[in-house]
């Protein structure tokens, strides 16, 4: 019972941060959606230890684990667009699939390449220092 209440309180707290994000984004006309701003706010609050991770961990982990669930009812809305699918479905599928895969390949490939390079440099650097100290 106590745990259930605590869990609900954590969800409520996350909801409040979300609302705060919405209000600030709207008020300052930021090019960031309220939910992303809320994420940044919570990250800052955690990093500055204003909020302890234990206060929200259970609720947050639950929501993280089931993030996909919340997209399902929205994606079901695709059922109202069967006419678009008939008209130019194949072309659009190629556009969306192709450009998504190109974006992913470039992002992932480059990020891994650059981090491997900087890691190598770091290692060489530390080897150099060792030699120097010898």
């Amino acid at each position, binding site marked *: 019972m106590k745990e259930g209440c605590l869990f609900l309180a954590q969800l409520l707290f996350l909801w409040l941060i979300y609302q705060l994000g919405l209000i600030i984004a709207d008020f300052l006309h930021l090019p960031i959606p309220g939910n992303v701003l809320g994420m940044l706010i919570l990250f800052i609050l955690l990093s500055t230890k204003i909020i302890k991770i234990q206060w929200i961990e259970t609720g947050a982990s639950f929501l993280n684990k089931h993030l996909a669930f919340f997209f*399902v009812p929205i994606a079901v809305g695709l059922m109202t667009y069967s006419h678009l699918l008939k008209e130019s479905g194949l072309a659009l599928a190629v556009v969306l699939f192709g450009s998504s895969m190109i974006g992913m390949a470039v*992002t992932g490939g480059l990020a*891994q390449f650059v981090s491997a390079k900087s890691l190598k440099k770091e290692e060489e650097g530390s080897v150099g220092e060792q030699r120097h100290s010898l």
Partner: protein
Amino acid sequence: MNSVTLFSIVLTMIVYFIARLLAVRFPSPLTTPVFLSTAAIILILVLGGISYEEYTPAKEVMTYLLGPATVALAVPLYHNRHVLLKKVVPAFAGLTAGTFATVVSAVWLVKAFHLSETMAASAAVKSVTTPVAIEVALIIGGDPALSAIFVMVAGMFGAMFGPWLLTVMKVTDPFSRGLSIGTTAHGIGTAQAVAEGRLQGAVSGAAMGFAAILTSFIMPWLFPLLY
């Protein structure tokens, strides 16, 4: 609450949990929970003669926690903050190049298929989270409703085939995988990245945010250059 709404909620939850189990038992792009659940629910609604309008009240109830769920991504981000700080350079390089690549290729592919400029503008924003995509689409002459659909389908493709593509390309570094998924497949991809690992989920959530910011800054001048 009427019976159709109650049925829709129970149906969605049951289908989602079955899809989750299937994803673990038979991992494949086709068993990606968000795709499989959506496809199964649409099929059941169509067969049961339930329209999307009738399903909408249930949708409102179930998506109430989507905002807080996105905020909650700050927790894995916090747990992995040291890794993130170390990887600022590769993160910036990958995110910027990837965002440009996905926008440019989307517009060029639309042109190759001789689709309208409205389609091009709507497809250009498909990699970022819906609220931002809608706003940016309006600025560059896209259709907000169309963009919302493109965002959803692109996210679905990203969640289904992104991890597979990265594995084929031998991108094994969890940080780079998360960055790639979040940059091009926003929240729907992030949901899949979370299932892959905590670091992947954290990076994907952060990448989704930064990709949205970057896109809203570059799109107003980039799109006119492309089309």
